[in-house]
């Protein structure tokens, strides 16, 4: 990539750059505080991205989760190329789509893109992507058989044309999704967030007497690109291969990952050749999404401090054979693709440990477990999403934290909130001693979480659990973490992925995996071992 030199000095650029980030954060604040979706507002499962008129990202909201890294610029570039060429955009237009191949890999993630006009010319775009409460189809989970069971798909369509809402589209949405007022409410919140961003940007343009965004866009993209390239240059050139297995359905049909990371000069290529084919369960990832979760650990390892934009990703290439688990094609089911995306950091760090051992962490007890409860409580239907996390992996200089979300970043639902919404009684939430992998530094502990159906009707449970038949992998001699389990009392078969029923009086007992260790356990400091014993982390 070649960019022209810019007219901004280091001070002006520093100031304008922080203003751009502030603008997307202001928009993110608007979205988060007005959305209904639990994952959007509690778990930051959204992103706001400001782009130039070529669709290159200039600034991204700072708290967004990794799943949306790089997605909006890819979407916007595709919109410009295949759907709405540059000259067709009008002020007040808004385009919506949830096409998983254009957006973030499953239908609940809705992308909303608005053009930005300044003094009547198109200067850029602002986009938001957020997890909607529902898109119709089956109850969300890993159990869908194909894409069509996963609800409504909206190809890139004008949600507003020059400020006039597309009533037909709103109507179709309202007729196809559960809790329509919430889903449509969230879409409106996304539009409002875009509008807020545009408003703030106008002020920045006026105050700084800018005529367009191109010079500024070049300058920040250049700087981020340069930082990433410099960090990559410092790493030893070479090809690093790693293999890794995960549960799949947990009943014999697993997933196999292979990665070859090649660092050459200031470029990095991650290739997934050898990875297993698309799975029959809905845990397949599209390439956009696999890119996001591959670029994320690379960013953490090499350039964690520099703000994200298109430039951060220019030196990164991700390839995968068409039709495999991380480059799924139609009509592979995608609903719970997060469980696959959430494992890619393990694969990437596993390979990078051979190149830059001081810049990676051991495997976490992720993926985050997602549980959806659906049934009737006090005469009303409920759909409650909640999340549980395993232990964090050990680091080169310190232990892993107990029960902490990674690589996604989702909060748990408070027990008392869960009991308000659903007819369950939580019977335990505790750290799970001895669940972490030992090492010079040990992983973080997993947890035990159990609850009972105290209602009169069965509760449908959509489980997306992971690492119940595979373990988090230790690094450089560190030990693996303990596997998780899904049990029901009275005892019977209960799927770790897919749909099950929890009958009145039955109790579901979930144990979440611990994080893996880093380095030789024999080298662990005795004082740390004593402390772990005193606190009951190990026995």
């Amino acid at each position: 990539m070649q960019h022209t030199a810019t007219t901004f000095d280091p001070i002006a650029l520093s100031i304008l750059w922080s203003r751009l980030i502030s603008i997307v954060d202001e928009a993110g604040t608007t979205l988060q505080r007005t959305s209904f979706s639990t994952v959007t507002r509690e778990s930051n499962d959204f992103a706001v991205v400001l782009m130039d008129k070529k669709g290159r990202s200039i600034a991204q909201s700072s708290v967004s989760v990794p799943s949306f890294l790089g997605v909006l610029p890819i979407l916007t570039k595709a919109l410009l190329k295949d759907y709405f060429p540059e000259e067709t955009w009008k002020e007040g237009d808004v385009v919506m789509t949830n096409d998983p191949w254009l957006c973030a890999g499953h239908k609940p993630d809705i992308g909303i893109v608005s053009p930005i006009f300044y003094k009547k010319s198109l200067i850029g775009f602002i986009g938001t992507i957020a997890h909607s409460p529902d898109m119709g189809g089956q109850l969300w989970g890993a159990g869908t058989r194909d894409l069509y069971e996963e609800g409504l798909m909206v190809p890139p369509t004008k949600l507003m044309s020059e400020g006039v809402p597309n009533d037909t589209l709103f109507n179709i949405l309202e007729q196809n999704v559960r809790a329509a007022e919430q889903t449509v409410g969230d879409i409106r919140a996304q539009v409002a967030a875009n509008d807020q961003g545009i408003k703030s940007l106008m002020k920045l343009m006026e105050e700084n007497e800018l005529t367009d965004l191109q010079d500024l866009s070049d300058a920040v993209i250049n700087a981020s690109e340069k930082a990433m390239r410099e960090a990559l240059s410092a790493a030893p050139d070479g090809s690093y291969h790693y293999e890794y297995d995960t549960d799949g359905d947990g009943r014999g049909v697993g997933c196999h990952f292979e990665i070859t990371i090649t660092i050459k000069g200031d470029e990095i290529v991650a290739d997934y050749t050898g990875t297993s084919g698309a799975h029959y369960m809905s845990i397949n990832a599209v390439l956009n999404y696999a890119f996001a979760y591959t670029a994320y650990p690379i960013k953490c390892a090499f350039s964690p401090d520099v703000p994200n934009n298109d430039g951060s990703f220019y030196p990164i290439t991700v390839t995968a054979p068409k039709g495999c688990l991380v480059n799924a094609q139609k009509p592979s089911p995608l609903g719970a693709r997060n469980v696959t995306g959430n494992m890619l950091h393990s694969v990437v760090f596993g390979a990078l440990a051979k190149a830059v051992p001081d810049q990676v962490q051991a495997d976490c007890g992720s993926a985050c477990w997602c549980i959806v409860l659906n049934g009737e409580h006090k005469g009303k239907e409920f759909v409650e999403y909640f999340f549980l996390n395993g232990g964090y992996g050990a680091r080169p200089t310190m232990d892993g934290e107990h029960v902490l979300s990674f690589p996604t970043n989702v909060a748990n639902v408070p027990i008392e909130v869960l009991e308000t919404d659903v007819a369950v009684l939580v019977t335990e939430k505790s750290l799970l001693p001895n669940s972490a992998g030992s090492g010079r530094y040990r992983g973080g502990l997993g947890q035990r979480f159990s609850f009972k159906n105290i209602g009169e009707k069965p509760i449908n449970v959509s489980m997306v659990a992971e690492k119940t038949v595979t373990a988090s992998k230790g690094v450089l001699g560190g030990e693996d973490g303990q596997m998780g389990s899904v049990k029901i009392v009275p005892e019977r078969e209960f799927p770790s992925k897919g749909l099950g029923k929890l009958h009145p009086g039955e109790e579901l007992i979930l144990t979440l995996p611990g994080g893996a260790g880093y380095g030789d356990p024999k080298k662990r400091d005795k004082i740390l071992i004593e402390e772990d014993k005193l606190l009951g982390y190990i026995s």
Partner: protein
Amino acid sequence: MKLGIDIGGTFTDFVLFDNNSNQLYFAKTLTTYPDPTVGIFNGVKELEDKFGFPVKDMEGIVHGTTLVTNAVIERKGAKTAFITTKGFEDVLEIGREMRYDIYDIFLTMPKPLVPRNLRMGVSERVDIEGNVITPLDEGTLESLATTLKNSGIEAVGVCLLNSFANTSHEKALGEYLSENVPDMYYSLSSEIMPEIREYERSSATAMNAYVQPITDKYLKDFETQLRKQGFEGNINIMISSGKLTTIDGARKSPIHLLESGPAGGAMAGVFFGKHLQEENLLCFDMGGTTAKACVIYEGKPEITNHFEAGRVKRFKKGSGLPVRIPVIDLIEIGAGGGSIARVNNIGLLTVGPDSASSTPGPACYNLGGEDPTVTDADLVLGYLNADYFLGGEMKLSVQAARKAIETKLAKPMGISIEEAAMGVHRIVNENMANAARVHVLEKGMDPRHFNMIGFGGAGPVHSFGVAKLLNTKRLIIPVGAGVTSAIGFLVSPVASEKIHSHISELETLDWKEVNRFLSDMEDDGYEFLSQSGIAKKDATVQRVVEMRYYGQGHEITIDLPEGQLSEKDITEIQERFIKEYEFRYNRSIEGMRMEMVTWRVVVQGPIPEMNVEQFSTGVGGDESYKGTRKVYFEETGYIDCPVYNRYALKPDEKFDGPAIIEETESTTVIGINTTIQVDSDKNILIDLHQ
């Protein structure tokens, strides 16, 4: 006569108001460690020696301190145990399972205040509606009490699941403990924070227990020593919401003291705003390591219930321990006089959030600091007077400041020292303005509709730059800019704040139940005020509910209609909610159900009158104009800028900027194209013509 005493990290500030002469007096002493009461009584003596006011003549004393905040940050609280429902002992450690930094794989989470081996479970369970599912197993309490005694525990926090819905098990535990382990302090979650969300409630309860023994001892000493000196008046303590509590109230719920100092600053903003007929103000307070901003809207400070203490990373939201108490909604930014400037790995100039603090301090202190800081930049630009820093007590080295800026900033960027210094000044202003702008927008307000009031040691130096960035029309630099929090203490009302969780959709509310608990909370409030000698007829009551659209997670606060509530009020409440929602978010959702979550009743005494006619300030002199010095402004470069002595400014004096106005604790910097007006109280009013 009333006295405000504010203990900060470095200084203890005193403000005395004499209501006979309507005059304010200021004093400042060094904060003393480990016993801060030494510093207090040094100051008390100074007030008597200098102005002739002995403490025994005071009618009231209002006090605020950083004691509680520091105990949490430095982990210097008591050895504390924690009792909860069996099976949930780790809730306090697990927290919300979320990281506060997405890209830092080396992050650490805050350690719980009570370690795992001191957290104990009791067999009991109450459901979400308050029904007892498992009765409290009283048979195990004896061994529990023995364990507590034998482990040398000083305080215990008790938080049982769903205890906001049924307090009986927690109360029974509390009674058992007070009878059987009488020397131990205990905090019950149903008294500290009776709100849904077990982790946040546990966290607040554990923290309250953790700081209770030291706060209790400190306040006892403080009171005893005051009484010894013949003081017979009321003692009130400043709490985080900008209200005052009693000594007893503070001893019971010390976590409410977490933000007492900053809350005082905001209340001073309210006071000056009222005085100057400014209803909507942005308060801007900048010190050595941090800047704080808060919004005063229609004469009232904005209050939030989201607060964190003891952050692992000071300016990172989510890296601390949550405490859901009412606090004045302040944002804290890593921008102060000591903030370090550097050229980062991509060649850009950045400032903060880390600070050179007081040792080694900025390079210009000449105490070994080599990193260029905001103070160094301000000195190079001519904003600070090297010979008149802290009134001349500290000599600054321009040469050292220039050298640090030259080596670390100017040379690497290939620009002049002045340009680099101006860059530091601008960037730190920009950081503060950005944070303030997001903060105001989060509230659905427009920053341009606010005038600004600036104080703190570095506030008057930077307020002008920040005000320009925020398109502020008028900037106020009040008198006593170095002791503002203590001024705020004297103009804050005594109040009781009660909370109650009762979650229900608006349409199906049990109004009888609502009226019952609202009136109980109100009665508790009157009872509390009577302890400070405030009669029911002088009290005002504010009843609010936090509500949301059904399914949302953020609540907004709505004033409840007056009197007994019933179905007839539903429409009014809906309208108020929609109005507030539209104000905050510019939209509302038609036909959406609404849900009530937390109910709050504030019973408040009158706001103390303080008709200040005169401020006793530093050494005056006849002539305010001190001459000129070279000062660098962005638009002009170095110019000969007029310098004034604030103490000699005449009421109603008026002149044009640029100007530098010096006083002991700070310097007011005013750029070009401005008009400066001194009011009758020597507040400086700056018109920015924008």
